[in-house]
């Protein structure tokens, strides 16, 4: 029994015990390489460029590679090639042509293409035309391995729910875009649904109020939280029109998202460098912006003399500024605001008066045309003369005054210099007077006082020095401390800048890790969906049971093998002992007979027979052994023959011969045609 199994395992039925053991797994696992691949290609064929050739469905009854027809194989291979290497695959037709030589050419070029891709196995045109299952299987497996991964993932693998939704959306959008726009009157009901403007409203968003929107991190004021709890409408009820709910939500979401992103960018690029806490940075930025806005408003609100709007807009603006600034700076702005309004009132009340005066002056200057020409000329001459005289006088006076001024300025310089010198000498003199006064006071008892003074000076000098040494006791440690602290401080500075650098580094790393995590999350979700899509009925239990069964079978077989092995050993032993017995028996008999043979003639004859018998028996045994060896060889050869038969070599050869004949026939027909032509 064992021998039978061992004989049938090699060859083309290798998978049989396997498939017998897992009948339910077969379509999913075993044939995955062939059918699924093709189904994939076939159904995805819409995206490929194929010259109007129809996609081919794998027939229902085909459930193994063994049942593939040549057409199916050729198409499978060509489509795989097109995906793997478009320029290579596009030159090949996925349909099998009727003519033999064309078929041969297609087969050869397919084989060549596969070899170019790196297929190592034996391949020729007959592989496609007269396929054997193992060859096709290994070829298709090779091609599937070669299929580009990314596109396969993108187009084929089931993604997460969101991915599926997105895919559906994009498909829908693409389909709608592909439809031509049709004037409203010509629309079919289908188009009406997608192209009418009635359905899709204008994108109109409204500001939404959300409970958590402001004061993040801080607990809201009690009143505010009350408002949120009792009065705030749900988001869907807030917009005035129901249609603008999605728009408002989208707008709100985009706003929040961009604000968060912007803040993160700013904080990472500038905020970190200021070494402030996030709140501190925010408040500083707010104060800065407020100040700038205030300045701008103030500049814009400066009273413009010609502007008619000034008197109206001025007070409003000032008031606004006041209230705006009041929130931040308080009293100082108030004062400024009032001054600003005062000046404004002043300018605008003045204006009408001044303009009236100007008008009057202009009217008086108007020349009267009634005066005669000559009078006018003479008058002008006189006037010119008078003016020239006046000019001369003025220039003379100018010169005089200039000289005076020069002189005076020199005098001023002199006086100020003198004043300074006097002041200085005064100070000096006052000092010396004070000293001299004291000296005079001490003069009466000069000798005594001098001695006293000297002792005083000496003692105070000593005192001062002792004080200095005492001060030194305090000063030196303080200076030392100061230096130590400075050093510490600079060390800290260094440390902190180093840490800042590290923090930045960490931030980068965190961002990278977050990205990676996001990616992995996506992958995880995808795998989860994939897992969910897998058939659930195959339980682990069944698998293990089967594995255990197989293990049991193998153990049983092993036991049998050991039994047979021990049998063989026993036989060998028996043979050995028998051979020994025979040898010994022969030796004894030989001796006895030989002894007698010397005496008796008939015995001699029987000795001869004995020797002949022994020789013949030995030959017989030898022959039996040889027969065994030959039998084994025969069995080996039979096995080989069977394998060769599996390859269908003979029939293939016959077919090839037939093909050859067909090609020759076609060739001769063509040659005849040529000749006729």
């Amino acid at each position: 029994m064992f021998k039978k199994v061992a004989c049938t395992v090699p060859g083309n039925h290798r998978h049989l015990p396997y498939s017998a053991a897992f009948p339910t797994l077969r379509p999913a696992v075993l044939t995955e390489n062939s059918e699924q691949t093709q189904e994939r290609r076939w159904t995805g064929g819409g995206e490929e460029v194929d010259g109007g050739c129809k996609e081919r469905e794998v027939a229902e009854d085909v459930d193994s590679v063994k049942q593939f027809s040549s057409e199916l194989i050729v198409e499978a291979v060509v489509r795989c090639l097109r995906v793997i290497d478009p320029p290579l695959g596009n030159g090949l037709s996925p349909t099998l042509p009727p003519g033999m030589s064309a078929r041969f050419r297609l087969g050869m070029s397919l084989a060549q293409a596969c070899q170019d891709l790196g297929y190592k196995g034996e391949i020729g045109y007959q592989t496609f035309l007269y396929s054997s299952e193992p060859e096709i299987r290994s070829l298709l497996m090779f091609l599937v391995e070669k299929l580009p991964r990314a596109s396969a993932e993108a187009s084929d693998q089931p993604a997460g729910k969101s991915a599926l939704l997105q895919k559906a959306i994009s498909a829908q959008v693409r389909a709608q875009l592909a439809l031509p726009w049709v004037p409203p009157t010509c629309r079919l009901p289908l188009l009406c649904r997608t192209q009418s403007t009635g359905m899709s409203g204008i994108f109109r968003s409204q500001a939404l109020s959300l409970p958590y929107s402001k004061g993040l991190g801080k607990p809201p004021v009690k009143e505010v939280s009350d408002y949120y709890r009792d009065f705030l409408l749900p988001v869907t009820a807030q917009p005035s029109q129901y249609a603008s709910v999605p728009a408002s939500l989208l707008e709100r979401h985009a706003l929040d998202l961009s604000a968060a992103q912007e803040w993160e960018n700013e904080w990472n690029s500038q905020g970190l460098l200021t070494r402030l806490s996030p709140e501190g940075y925010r408040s500083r930025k707010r104060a800065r912006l407020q100040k700038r806005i205030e300045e701008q408003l103030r500049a814009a609100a400066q009273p413009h003399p010609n502007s008619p709007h000034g008197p109206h807009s001025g007070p409003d603006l000032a008031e606004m500024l006041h209230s705006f600034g009041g929130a931040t700076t308080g009293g100082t702005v108030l004062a400024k605001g009032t001054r600003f309004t005062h000046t404004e009132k002043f300018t605008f009340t003045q204006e009408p008066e001044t303009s009236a005066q100007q008008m009057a002056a202009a009217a008086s200057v108007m020349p009267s045309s009634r005066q005669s020409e000559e009078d006018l000329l003479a008058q002008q001459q006189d006037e010119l003369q008078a003016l020239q005289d006046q000019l001369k006088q003025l220039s003379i006076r100018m010169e005089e005054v200039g000289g005076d001024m020069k002189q005076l300025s020199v005098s001023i310089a002199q006086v100020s210099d003198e004043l300074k010198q006097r002041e200085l000498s005064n100070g000096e003199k006052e000092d010396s007077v004070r000293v001299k006064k004291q000296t005079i006071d001490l003069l009466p008892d000069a000798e005594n006082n001098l001695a006293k003074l000297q002792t005083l000076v000496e003692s105070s000098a000593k005192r001062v020095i002792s004080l200095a040494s005492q001060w030194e006791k305090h000063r030196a440690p303080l200076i030392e401390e100061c230096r130590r602290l400075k050093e510490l401080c600079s060390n800290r500075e260094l440390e902190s800048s180093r840490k800042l650098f590290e923090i930045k580094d960490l931030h980068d790393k965190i961002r990278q890790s977050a990205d990676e995590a996001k990616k992995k999350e996506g992958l995880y979700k995808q795998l989860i969906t994939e897992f969910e899509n897998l058939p659930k009925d195959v339980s682990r239990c069944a698998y293990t049971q089967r594995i255990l069964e197989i293990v049991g079978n193998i153990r049983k077989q092993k036991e049998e093998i050991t039994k047979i092995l021990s049998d063989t050993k026993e036989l060998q032993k028996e043979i050995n002992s028998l051979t020994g017995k025979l040898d010994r028996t022969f030796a004894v008999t030989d001796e006895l007979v030989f002894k007698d043979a010397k005496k008796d003639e008939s015995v001699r004859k029987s000795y001869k027979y004995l020797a002949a018998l022994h020789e013949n028996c030995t030959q017989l045994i030898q022959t039996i052994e040889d027969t065994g060896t030959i039998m084994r060889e025969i069995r080996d050869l039979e096995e080989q023959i069977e394998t060769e038969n599996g390859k269908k070599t003979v029939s293939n050869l016959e077919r090839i011969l037939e093909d050859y004949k067909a090609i020759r026939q076609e060739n001769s027909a063509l040659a005849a045609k040529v000749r006729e032509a």
Partner: protein
Amino acid sequence: MAGVETQLMLSVGLIEKDVNGDVLWVWCYPSVSAELRDVLLSKCCLTLDSSMLHTFVFGQFSRTWYYITTVEVHEPTALKKVTHFSIVLTAKDFNPEKYAAFSRVLCRMYSKHGSPVRMMEGYIAVLTKGMCQNDENGSFLVKDYDAQKAYLAGSIKDVVSQFGMESIILYTALMLKKRVVVHHPRIEAVLEFTRVLPALTWHRKDWSILHPYVHLNERELESLRLCTGYVAGFVDPEISNRSDLFDVYVNLPDSEITVSQNAKEAMLMGKLHRDVGLLMVQSAEHADRTDSQVIKDISVKTKEILANLTSLAEECENSKITLETLKQRRFPPATESFLFHLAAAEQLLKI
């Protein structure tokens, strides 16, 4: 005599630069005002970015003279963590040699003992007795350093030989109490050159017009503007653009003298100037004439001019001159203008 002179010293201070690179004003006696302290710190070469060490600099700020000696601490001494230190002396008088010698003595004391107490003992000794015992070589005596010597220490011959006939511009500017600014990138050159210039008006013996080391900051310029005429030294090349600060600009590296536009009128040169200029050049060219002799020559000529001016003044009432009296004499216009301005500078003008 010595007793009076010792009173000229105002204070002694100490600036240290430590291993952290910080420059600290660590000690002083009796006291230095905060403003002056800031100025002194800016003058001290330790606070400058360049690693150049100026061993000795001096200058004037608001009529207080300061003398700064800077020493690098080399051999292991009592001073830990200190790489350089400067001794700052302030005084009422101009005498660089005296204070350089004294501060050298103080430096040795400080680097030896590492404590300002010993330094202070020396300072008090000079203040009370006019002398100070030095451990190594003799003693420091105040009376060895006369003010007269300090005035004559610079070389007028060098100045005249550098600028030739153009020296007369300097002479005129100083006589008329104009504002002279000297620029050289090296502070030592500026100090050496500027201290000579007041000697051109020897009859005044006024060295308070000298501000040899001025920075272009508002505080110092303000103090400079308070003076009518001055000789100021700058190392910052930016000074050439500040024409509001000078009437005469001396570019030392290029040996150029420029008279600013608004002072041209007062600085008109005539025959009188040529005479003085020739006298200066000839006197300075004499190989065997010392600096003090050259100064004396110039001074004699100056006195001559002044005597003329005084005699003119005596004819008028109150011994004061007016422009009219000058005009009556019919001097050439350049001489008339010079005499007029000179009279103003010498307070001989009638107001």
